[in-house]
């Protein structure tokens, strides 16, 4: 259907408003991170920096600097935690997904799995805290890895199951007829075919773990295990007088997920849409 001129103007106006609303806050965060500290305390604000100041990024990437040490150890912890949890979640999820897909494990059980992680974490937090405390496991990356792996597991199983469902079953059956074990079939037949699905699942899992805050807040208390979200909350709550420092940490923590999200947009959007609608 053809649009009238008025309708076209309206469409572009809405598009512009949406673009400003979406990009505005992020753009401002980026601008703050490179503004001169004095520009950020002017009333009203100086929107265009009088000069560009990249020193905050320099400090964040410098181990000798106080905020740099905080940031870099949090970055390391976040990568280890999210990476480790993703690896364990996939390792456990793939056989489970195969069971749901090819061994007709009950879907009610899968729903129960999903229900456990849809519950508010506040329901689980105290017993976990007490248990980790008495086992001496507080403030350890490995603790977060285990908790995050459990948190990622149901969704990973669900996503992998949906993908194994659409793989051709004939090759597997042939392999099993020949006397191959299920473990062998899973490794040599199913895994290579499911590789794209595994990559997509891994990426989404990593992003979810990268974002997690609540468990990390309760279970960690210093540089040895604190993840980026907790470190950022510290930066924001601390006595930092230069808002640009907080902004630069925010930009750094956003870059990895933002790059992944833009680069693998199709993957992620279809995963999200399927994941939230098909239950």
């Amino acid at each position, binding site marked *: 259907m053809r649009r009238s001129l008025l309708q076209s103007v309206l469409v572009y106006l809405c*598009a512009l408003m949406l673009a400003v609303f979406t*990009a505005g*806050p992020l753009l*401002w965060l980026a601008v703050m991170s490179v503004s001169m500290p004095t520009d950020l305390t002017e009333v009203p604000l100086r929107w265009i920096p009088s000069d560009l100041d990249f020193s905050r990024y320099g400090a964040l990437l410098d181990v000798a600097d106080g905020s740099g040490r905080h940031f870099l150890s949090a970055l390391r912890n976040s990568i280890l935690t999210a990476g480790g949890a993703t690896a364990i979640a996939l390792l456990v999820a793939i056989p489970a997904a195969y069971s749901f897909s090819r*061994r007709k*494990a009950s879907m009610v059980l899968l729903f129960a799995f999903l229900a456990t992680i849809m519950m508010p974490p506040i329901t689980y937090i105290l017993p976990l805290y007490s248990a980790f405390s008495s086992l001496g496991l507080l403030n350890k990356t490995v603790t977060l890895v285990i908790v995050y792996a459990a948190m990622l597991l149901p969704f990973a199983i669900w996503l992998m199951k949906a993908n194994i469902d659409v793989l051709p079953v004939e090759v597997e059956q042939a392999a099993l007829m020949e006397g191959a074990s299920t473990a062998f079939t899973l490794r040599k037949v199913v895994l290579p075919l499911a590789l794209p699905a595994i990559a997509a699942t891994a990426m989404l899992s990593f992003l979810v773990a990268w*974002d997690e*805050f609540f468990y990390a807040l309760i279970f960690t208390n210093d540089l040895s295990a604190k993840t980026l979200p907790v470190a950022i909350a510290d930066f924001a709550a601390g006595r930092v007088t230069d808002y640009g420092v907080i902004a630069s940490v925010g930009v750094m923590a956003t870059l990895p997920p933002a790059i992944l999200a833009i680069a693998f947009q199709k993957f992620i959007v279809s995963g999200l849409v399927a994941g939230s609608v098909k*239950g």
Partner: protein
Amino acid sequence: MLGRRQKQEKWMLLAPAMFVLALITMVPLANTLWLSFTDTRITAIAAPVHFIGLENYIYALTDPDFQAALYRTLYFTIVSVGLEGVLGIAVAVLLNQPFRGRLVLRALIILPWAVPTIVNAVAWRLIYQPDYGALNSLLYQLGLISDYRSWIGDPSTAMNMVILADVWKNFPLVAYVALAALQTVPDDLLKAAAIEGASPWKRFRSITLPWIAGPLLVVMVLRTIEAFRVFDIIYVMTSGGPADSTKTASFFIYQEYFNYLRSGSGASYAVLVAGISAVLILVYYSAAKRQAAGGTA
């Protein structure tokens, strides 16, 4: 049919997943349930624990502070998810129109989703900053306010400001789901209705909206479940304040546990919240199941 070996395998393949989930979710849930019937406190030295029956629940259910926290959670959930729904549909309808830059805009709106929750909270806290914040400056320069305001320092505006930040982060998910659904609306149907003389609004109301209602409902129930447990954004932006005006249920229980160290009492609040969540989760599954079965309403 599955052979006996395959039946055994079915459970062996599931065993690791069941073990991990039992350990990290089922055991703690049972433990929380047990705690809720006791007067346990978090103490440095082990103190005697008494079974006190329903006492915590009787207190919790008549506690005006908890009721207020639940009410705030409800307000946050309904307004956030409602706005995300309206904005999500509007954005999807826009992105379903042909115009130059459409694909760029569609890619752009994934960014709020990708921003970590904590960064989102920190960024908006800076924007709302009372003395030098961008919102104050922008509204002042546009002539909409004559004095800078303390957006999240004022109990009358704090919650709505937190909601705005939450909507910014979460509308993309709803928009993507709505857009995917819009692309399945049959063109013939809309064209036929247009020929019959139905106005654009009428076509949207009686054809488009019912067509996309199924998936939309499912994603909004999912968002409701997530919004109901809100904690992170509150912790960073307002810590439940000012004057408790943003203290939601999760934050209330967090304080009961880790500030007041009343684990027994806290557990009873947690069980109540878990019960409400369980109902929402059941609604989600029935909506998702109907959607999977091919229903459109």
